[in-house]
């Protein structure tokens, strides 16, 4: 494995008079490395939130939220957006810029529709009396959807900048990479949402058996 080979090198013995070692970069563009590092940070953030959710759940006052039907619709819309961006990447790789643009546009609009749908879900919960501070389950739901939504908003900023480039100078160097990075981000946030939604559903179905706190 190259990681082990890297870490077991003996730099004090190396003699490289003629053949200098190669550049030693990871075999991916720097912008993608940056994105992967960032996604690791975001993944940690949501993993910690989920673990806090599970820990807090075991206390007696936890009342699970209902899984609103609109959330299923939102999930579908977000997945559609992810598919659209994936197809957009395929288009960009083949140099078909017209289809690339349309699919890219659709992917972003799906994300916007998802955000609108999440706001609808908030309104419905509010109408049903599931207020933020009423129960920790409510608070967690609002907090997790808000943080997820903020990350989608951030993604839309990158999406907008890429879209402008797609329309003004399609085919420019680096454009394909920008589309690919947007797609990666969209897939990632879809996975995060699926995990959050899955936790909520499992909670609603009573899959987490509530038990009294024993101290952890």
């Amino acid at each position, binding site marked *: 494995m190259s990681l082990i080979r890297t*870490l077991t090198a003996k730099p004090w013995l190396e003699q490289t008079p003629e053949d200098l070692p190669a550049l030693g970069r990871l075999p991916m563009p720097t912008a993608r490395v940056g994105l992967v590092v960032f996604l*690791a940070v975001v993944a940690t953030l949501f993993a910690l939130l989920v673990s806090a959710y599970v820990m*807090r759940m075991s206390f007696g*006052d936890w009342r699970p939220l209902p899984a609103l039907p609109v959330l299923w619709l939102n999930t579908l819309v977000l997945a559609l957006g992810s598919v659209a961006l994936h197809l957009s990447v395929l288009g960009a790789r083949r140099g078909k810029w017209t289809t690339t643009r349309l699919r890219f546009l659709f992917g972003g609009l799906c994300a916007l529709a998802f955000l609108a749908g999440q706001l609808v879900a908030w309104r419905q919960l509010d109408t049903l009396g599931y207020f933020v501070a009423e129960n920790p389950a409510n608070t967690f739901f609002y907090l997790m959807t808000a943080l997820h939504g903020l990350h989608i908003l951030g993604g839309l900023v990158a999406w907008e900048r890429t879209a402008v480039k797609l329309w003004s100078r399609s085919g420019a*160097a680096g454009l394909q990479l920008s589309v690919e990075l947007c797609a990666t981000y969209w897939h990632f946030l879809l996975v995060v949402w699926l995990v959050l939604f899955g936790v909520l559903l499992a909670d609603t179905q009573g899959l987490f058996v509530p038990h009294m706190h024993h101290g952890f």
Partner: protein
Amino acid sequence: MVQTAVIGDERAGVEPEHHEPKSFLTKYIWSQDHKVIAIQYTVTAITVGLIALVMSWMMRMQIGFPYSLGFIDQDRYYQFVTMHGMIMVIYLLTALFLGGFGNYLIPLMVGARDMVFPYVNMLSYWTYLLSVLVLVASFFVPGGPTGAGWTLYPPQAILPGTPGREWGIIMMLVSLVIFVAAFTMGGLNYVTTVLQARTRGMTMMRLPLTVWGIFVSTILGLLAFPALFVSGVMLLLDRVLLTSFFMPSIVSMGEPLGYRGGSPLLFQHLFWFFGHPEVYIVALPAFGIVSDLISTHARKNIFGYRMMVWAILAIGVLSFVVWAHHMYVSGMNPYFGFFFATTTLIIAVPTAIKVYNWVLTLWRGNIHLTVPMLFSLAFIITFVAGGMSGLFLGNVVVDVPLSDTYFVVAHFHMVMGVAPILVVFGGIYHWYPKVTGRLLSDAMGKFHFWVTFLGTFAIFFPMHYLGFVGMPRRYYDFSGINFIPDSAHTLNAFITIAALVVGAAQGVFLFNLVWSAFRGRLAGGNPWRATTLEWQTPETPPGYGNWGPRLPIVHRWAYDFSVPGADEDFLPQNHPPSRETAETAHGRPIAKGTMA
């Protein structure tokens, strides 16, 4: 013979164009140059650090000479404690090591022209400055800053009666959340630059240990700060929206509050999941820097380079599984204590490897007692002293009686307060000539060193004894407590005087920083005759883009000191392996091609 290369964008195969900024604003204020950003970070961090220093004086005055300063009431005292701790750990040490040293040294040491995302790097600094401004603003809001202690434990952090409960705690949490955003932007740069922007020949295992320390520390930060972010946001919601993440049902001052069923322990877990790696976020860059200082100033290659790298990695991994050793007295499940005590003691192994390797590097070295070397030696002594008391506190049965005493204050100040700050000083004395082109005054430096080193021992070493006699920490007033002997009060007065002296000696350091920038001895490009790349730049201080037209090529590791048969006692990393060397005006051998 090709000794140079043009390293560029991996796709286009050419070096991206750099447009050097011309106006004052883009060059020095809204700068995207990593060296300017590093100086901005450093100056800001030292400035807030001075505020925290003055607050430590205030605390010591109250403890050593109770009620001698009329304006220190108990609320003020707790506000000083809180802000001193928070500023020193996060806004000074973290920002200075990563934002300051990391920004300045990473691109220079790996042979890059700048960070890979310069714009994000600039945003990182300005976001950090915003977090500092919010923090400082909390001194001026009604009720003053929070006095919850630097750990901000709920429920007391947001209960009536705790100073700064109205606005201070909100400002504190908002500032921390902003800081995490700033750190993430900077951290992305540090990690990605080390991975992707190394010059030709600079393999990972040829990186100077400074870069390894900062690199792994940044990864720890990127994975640990989200826990601070999450707990900060949740505590903010508990405070502002009266949610019950952490707040149990509670009656405060005779009135039931609106909270129900929350878990203060949950906060402690989240906080220390950040808080313990934070210790190593501060320590690992110090480990790396001190390794390079010792090797350079003892003219000897670092002993056990690979072990040093592995130890840094092992400490990084282990630091995520020891957090609950901060919670032995919190009432958590005793079996957890067993697990966390075990992991805590295991972490002593890689740490001890590092200490042995520093000592073995010094063994039969050609030790130059320069100011950076003095600080490095002081670091080893202080770190061992602080680390040893950590072995005691890592055991549950020993920790329980000592936990709330001054023994803990002594431990953490020595191991993660004084030890890293000694490295900060050593690093500043070492790299100042590269940043400014002039050496810091040696006389002032030695004065600063001896007062700081002996003074901090005078402050913190006696605190171990205060801990043994059971003197509780966090108390504002010790009068009327029978079991505390009079000698403890005398000792406290002594400690306070030492603290005042050490604090005042930092004025000499600051004066030296300013005075030497104009009057210091000219340093030349490589005054310490060091091997690493930052000393091989064509200009000192390095110009925009660092390397002139051609990037350096690395032919060897960072520790070729006293190589048998070599003309000089050091071979720079870009020194080619052949015997053909060219003498430069500085009288140091250098690769032919890099002069092009």
